[in-house]
């Protein structure tokens, strides 16, 4: 078929032209020196090879930063973390497709049992690694410094309160003039660790007003769903009277107002990474090596911001292929170190409390 040949030739020529335009592509992005790179790299004891990991979207920015620092310091190493969602990450770990999973919640139940099969001679571990606050954002012209208690937030999200000038909100905000705008409560329409941690907080701190179960799917009726934290941010920004919850970095980048949240000590605390670290320090840690956290939302630690999420890295202490295990160990040693935790602080994450970080480090040290 000579017609076909000519056609194929033209196609081939064009394809190679398209590829040729950018034929000299490169992976070399190290040219732009980062200001903090020098200080952080000193502490890394390098390993080489390549590992793949996936899971939580909430820790994607932290991972990107860590991977960049690590790969810059350790030539010959490749760490590929893809944010596909916590449950998908855990499933991929169970399926043996990845070397560690990032997850907004600890692995447990049947999944833990099947995942543990990979850890021959060792143990399946949940390592708390990245902590961050959940900010409550709102769009209310002229209203700054909104203060909310857990009960009020629960009533807003359950639909018990529908107007911004409701006496319940006014009681939290003495001296603040509130408009009569209808409240549009915005939640995540996709399954999310952010939803899980917000609803855990509502259920833990305002059980009488929040009768819906907690979990990564939104269970309360009413309100509007929006896909992803970016979707929630966009919807809140575009809708007068809207309230939503997102990770801190989304709130900061969209320059939306954030509400102060009442903690167990009775203070209204503005969202910040330091206040979050204080909050995380109240969590109960399961005995090593599986460092699952149990949050205590009624703790009376002063200055603690009460709505936070902690994401885990899930891996095996033994049972990974030897070359992968060394790199996993080396990388997680870096991420749990003081330098590693400090590297992500200005990305809207809160450094782990020091004693928790050192517990994590000591478990990481047992990986082989």
């Amino acid at each position, binding site marked *: 078929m000579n017609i076909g040949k000519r056609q194929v030739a033209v196609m081939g020529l064009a394809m190679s032209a398209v590829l040729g335009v950018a034929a000299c592509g490169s992976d070399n992005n190290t040219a732009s020196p980062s200001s903090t790179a020098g200080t952080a790299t000193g502490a890394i004891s390098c390993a080489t090879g390549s590992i793949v990991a996936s899971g939580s979207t909430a820790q994607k920015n932290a991972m990107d930063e860590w991977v960049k620092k690590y790969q810059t310091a350790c030539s010959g190493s490749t760490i590929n973390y893809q944010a596909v969602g916590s449950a998908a990450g855990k499933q991929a770990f169970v399926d043996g497709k990845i070397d560690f999973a990032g997850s907004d919640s600890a692995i447990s139940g049947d999944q833990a049992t099947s995942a543990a099969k990979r850890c021959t001679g060792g143990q399946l571990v949940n390592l708390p690694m990245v902590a961050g606050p959940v900010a409550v954002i709102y769009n209310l012209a002229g209203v700054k410094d909104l203060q909310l208690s857990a009960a009020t937030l629960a009533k807003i999200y359950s639909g018990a309160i529908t107007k911004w000038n409701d006496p319940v909100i006014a009681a939290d905000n003495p001296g603040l003039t509130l408009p009569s705008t209808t409240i549009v409560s915005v939640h995540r329409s996709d399954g999310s660790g952010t939803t899980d941690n917000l609803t855990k907080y509502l259920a833990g701190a305002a059980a009488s007003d929040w009768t819906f179960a907690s979990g990564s799917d939104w269970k309360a009726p009413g309100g509007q769903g929006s896909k992803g934290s970016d979707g929630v941010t966009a919807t809140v920004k*575009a809708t007068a009277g809207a309230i939503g919850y997102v990770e801190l970095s989304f709130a900061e980048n969209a320059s939306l107002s954030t509400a102060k949240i009442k903690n167990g000590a009775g203070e209204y605390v503005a969202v910040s990474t330091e206040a979050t670290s204080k909050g995380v320090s109240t969590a109960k840690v399961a005995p090593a090596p599986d460092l699952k956290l149990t949050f205590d939302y009624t703790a009376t630690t002063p200055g603690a911001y009460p709505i936070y999420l902690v994401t885990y890295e899930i891996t095996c202490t033994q049972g990974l292929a030897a070359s992968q295990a060394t790199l996993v160990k080396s990388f997680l040693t870096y991420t749990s170190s003081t330098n590693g935790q400090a590297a992500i602080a200005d990305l809207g994450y809160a450094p782990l409390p020091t004693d928790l970080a050192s517990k994590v480090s000591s478990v990481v040290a047992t990986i082989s």
Partner: protein
Amino acid sequence: MSSESDGQGAGSPRGNGPPALKKPVSGSAHARVSPADLIFKNVTRAAGIGLLVLIAAIAAFLVIEATSALQANTGNFFTTTEWFPNASPPVFGIAALLFGTVLTAVIAMIIAVPVAVGIALFITVYAPRRLATPLAFIVDLLAAVPSVVFGLWGLIVLVPRMNGLQQWLTDYFGWIPLFSTDDGLVGRSIFVASIVLAIMILPIVAAISREIFLQVPNPHKEAALALGATRWEMIRTAVLPYGKPGVISASMLGLGRAMGETIAVALVLPASFNISWHILSPAGNTIAANVANGFSEANPIGRGALIASGLVLFIVTMLVNIMARAVIARRREFSGAT
């Protein structure tokens, strides 16, 4: 199959010239089937059967993966409107999702198909010849826009711009149940999602319709015009009847895409699980959007539930196609009289 019927039936949907002409053609040239012909025929047939095998494999996979989730379900899968497959015990049902899927896709079709046929007619009949190719190209460009971009554009640009129209519709036509709202709010509604979907399926329906209208034999058109027909009468008597089965087929492709679209709808709709005819209210969800929303945080039961919903979508497209086929079959007697 005899060579007789083979030759005669070639390209048969409209292959109905005078029988006297046909017989000698097939009879004389192809009284015997050459080995090459047989091989070629069997290769194409194998491909066709391969396609059936693929679809059977997908369907079997959907059924297998869905079964354990459906067994764990504590609600009625067909009547429940909630969707909590990750809870324990899991409760989920397809009712609200199916309703939203069909409603958005149907509205999208109502908007898109007439516009697409209009575009195809414009390009093939009305536009100056020199402009036709670039114009066709421009419309095809729409197909290249990734659905994430449509979703973002819909959410950030279209929704705020549509609020005026939606408010106006509900203010003045709110007495029609379709245009009334739950609590006066309009916004990220089924209506807007349908518009986004309509824009997304426009290029596919327009492009195939266009190619079909281009194939209308010129003698048909010229004959109509020579008889003094206006341009519209020419279109009505020569172009549309010839192209109708193709347009319906193109519309089915569009409908399939509208029902299967995931991310754009997931970004625009607020994912509420209720059955409501209020198409201007910020509410609604579709099967495919729900899969996009739920997949990343689904546990094994949740994943099975999403796959079960995919199976339902599969079956619904089947039903829609049965109906479309009935429509086409009724038109089949029409003869292009070549």
